[in-house]
């Protein structure tokens, strides 16, 4: 069985259920999948070429808009320092995201299990969320000695809230009849959490993870901007500020490119994780064939 291809398995199920086998649907789905990559990449390449041509043709000075080729050259030349900064931002982003997941899920589970705890603590979580992180960051930088820890707290505050709210909603969204069934079979609280509540919450959690992934990066960059940190052990935001002060616009663009690239990687990773977890059962991840 394990050696069967997806097409074979789909055919097996279709034979069993009596549904007509339609290879045309499979071909169309594959074509659509390829197009979803080819179209944006082609458009990107065309835009970059156009950018290069326009900059050269109009002789736009590099301190205004550098050509893509110059940005690439800068990337290569400053590779070591940019990579060190990227690594710093990557560490900050993923660590804050990991802490947001742990904190959001634990507090969310606590809220879902205890209404009094939710009523007591939820307003504070909302206050933390609605107060702009740029307004809190200077205080955190004063109270916390380590700059990295201060930046981490700022990024965590931004990424934490969507995980918390989605976990609470998700844990409460379990089918009521299934809840009744677990009650009838006298399931323990742990069994209920493990086999019913947690899987029911997964679609909500995965959606929140996609949002929180992006927010963790935004939080990491914004916090560094506010902190105005300088020196070798700093992130991409510091490289952007530094380049701005020195009017090194190609370097600024190179750092910006790396920030965007990191954002895309986070988006792809969270989308992939969502597909891995929900792909076989949840409507949001199932490709419908028309």
């Amino acid at each position, binding site marked *: 069985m394990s050696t069967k291809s997806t097409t074979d398995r789909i055919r097996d*199920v279709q034979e069993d259920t009596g549904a007509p086998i339609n290879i045309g649907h499979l071909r169309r789905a594959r074509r659509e999948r390829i197009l979803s990559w080819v179209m944006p990449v082609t458009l990107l390449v065309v835009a970059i070429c156009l950018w290069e041509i326009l900059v050269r043709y109009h002789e736009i000075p590099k301190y205004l808009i550098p050509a893509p080729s110059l940005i690439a050259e800068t990337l290569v030349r400053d590779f070591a320092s940019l990579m060190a900064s990227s690594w710093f931002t990557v560490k900050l982003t993923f660590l804050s995201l990991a802490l947001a997941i742990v904190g959001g899920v634990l507090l969310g589970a606590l809220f879902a299990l205890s209404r009094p705890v939710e009523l007591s603590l939820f307003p504070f979580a909302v206050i933390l969320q609605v107060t702009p992180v740029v307004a809190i960051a200077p205080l955190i930088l004063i109270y916390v000695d380590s700059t990295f820890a201060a930046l981490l707290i700022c990024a965590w505050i931004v990424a934490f809230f969507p995980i918390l709210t989605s976990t609470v909603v998700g844990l409460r969204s379990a089918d009521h009849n*299934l809840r*009744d*069934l677990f*009650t*009838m*079979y006298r399931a323990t609280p742990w069994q209920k959490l493990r*086999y019913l509540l947690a899987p029911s919450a997964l679609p909500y959690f995965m959606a929140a993870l996609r949002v929180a992934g992006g927010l963790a990066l935004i939080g990491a960059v914004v916090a560094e901007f506010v902190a105005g940190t300088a020196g070798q052990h700093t992130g991409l935001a510091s490289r952007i500020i530094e380049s701005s002060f020195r009017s090194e616009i190609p370097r600024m663009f190179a750092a910006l490119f790396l920030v965007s690239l990191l954002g895309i990687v986070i988006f792809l990773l969270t989308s992939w994780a969502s597909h891995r977890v929900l792909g076989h*059962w949840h409507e949001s991840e199932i490709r419908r064939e028309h």
Partner: protein
Amino acid sequence: MTGEPIITMDRVSKEFGDVLAVDNFSLGIRAGEFVTFLGPSGCGKSTALKMIAGILPLTAGEITISPPKGDAEHDLGFVFQEPTLKPWASVFDNVYLPLRLAGVRRSDGEPRVREALKEVGLSRFAHSYPRQLSGGMKMRVSIARALVSRPRILLMDEPFAALDEMTRSKLNNDLMQLSDDHGLTVVFVTHSVFESVYLSTRVIVMAARPGRLVADMPLNAPWPRSEDYRMSIEFTDETRRVSETLKGTLHVDEIDH
């Protein structure tokens, strides 16, 4: 059917806030009976069923299941109006659920899951997911899940209401066969007079506002029944008798919508 009741409901009442859903309901159900709760919407038939299952607490009265429920094995199986399957779990895992909750290891439970799936005709679909199945097949999975723990009592809350006539008729016959094979005591909720007369050995007619028992009607036709029974004069007569009793309850409550 003779002997002591396996389920005894003694002056059971249930209130939801100010609403009296079930009022002073007393009933004894003996082992092997196929009892149907029949009545209009809001007559408390599902509430009564859920109280037997221990899903809803009682406001007053007592429900006894005799002999008392053991801890390891489950005495009750429950089938809801919807299949109520876990969409993230395979058919196998859905059926395995009651055993898993009872602490039965997967390897030990596997033969019983396979047997339950075989009984409902879904052996080949153990690794499918609920979304890949038709409505009737999902309901079969739900029945297999209710039977896998080998309960003595099967509680069913309008399980076939959402199915098409053909599927419903087939499942009616399969259910009678299964309950006969296993010697089950079945408590079945429906608002279909035809279904109640075809399936049951006893129909409990209920009225609404407040939900209460108005008639206890034994049906003496040989059981399990076959499709021929649906065409018989006896079936028509019984249907008319039950139907008129049911109409009487509507008249009593002056429900004209």
